[in-house]
């Protein structure tokens, strides 16, 4: 998405991204970014919370209008659910007991893309 924003901006269309992967977006470098510090999947606000969604888009429009230089990042004032403080460690976590299960997922994925099976791990 960051690459699309860069292409549009370079072609004269001003852009603002609303997203949750701060490190990836800033690594790429984009003109304007509203950072929603939520689990990946709901950048515009909590599900079914119309007020939060409206205010998030309002913030994006404000950033669009007021940013004066590229790499402008503004953090949304909204937080993820207070009753789920563990969410930050959940996405793509790798636990020791998951090792065989994850390797099997990788094998299935490689098969689905017609790729060779993985190299055997060193003994």
């Amino acid at each position, binding site marked *: *998405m960051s690459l*699309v*924003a860069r*292409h*549009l*901006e370079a*072609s*004269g*269309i*001003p*852009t*603002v*991204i609303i*997203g*949750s*992967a701060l*490190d*990836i*977006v800033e*690594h*790429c*470098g*984009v*003109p304007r970014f509203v950072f929603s510090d939520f*689990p*990946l*999947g*709901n*950048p*515009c*606000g*909590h*599900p079914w919370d*119309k007020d939060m*969604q*409206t205010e*998030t*888009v*309002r913030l994006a*429009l404000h950033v*669009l*209008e007021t940013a004066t*230089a*590229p790499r402008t990042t503004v953090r949304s004032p909204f937080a*993820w659910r207070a009753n789920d403080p*563990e*969410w*930050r*460690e*959940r*996405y*793509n*976590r*790798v636990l020791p007991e998951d*090792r065989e299960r*994850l390797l099997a997922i*990788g094998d299935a*994925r*490689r098969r689905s893309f017609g790729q060779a099976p*993985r190299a055997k791990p060193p003994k």
Partner: protein
Amino acid sequence: MQDHDSGRPVPYMQRTRNYYRALGYTKDYVWARNDDVPFVHLAKPVSAMTVGLICTAGPGDRSHRDKRNRPHVWSGLVASPPDSFDTDLAWDKESTHTDDRETFLPIDAAGRLIADRTLGALAPRFHTAPTGYSQKKTTERDAPEILRRLKEDKADAAILTAL
């Protein structure tokens, strides 16, 4: 790395590297990195602008995918978006859900901002941007196609929302 409940943003690049290594991949993905970032100043206020919406989810009937399941740029009408969306992408399926379209394609939220005169108008179409592995396909095929469609719709600016 300690990012447990620390309030610090999740280190997604490191998490993703670790995860794919655990899946058995030996070559890390290299994310795009740029020193220069383009920037254009607005020619008019947002309240007088037509804005195009771009998301990463496609229609629920998966008509944005070819026979080999590869996604391509797809456009839908903001006046009649699909009833369901294909959100078969990388997001935190354990922590949340994507049952509410407005969390990733804020058509109704934008409508409320048009009603209160914060925003001029929405372009008639929203667009789905593929999120493939290939940065070359994104920059040489998909992004130019989205630009063409935005110009066709006379969009002055774009809001991009990434699942």
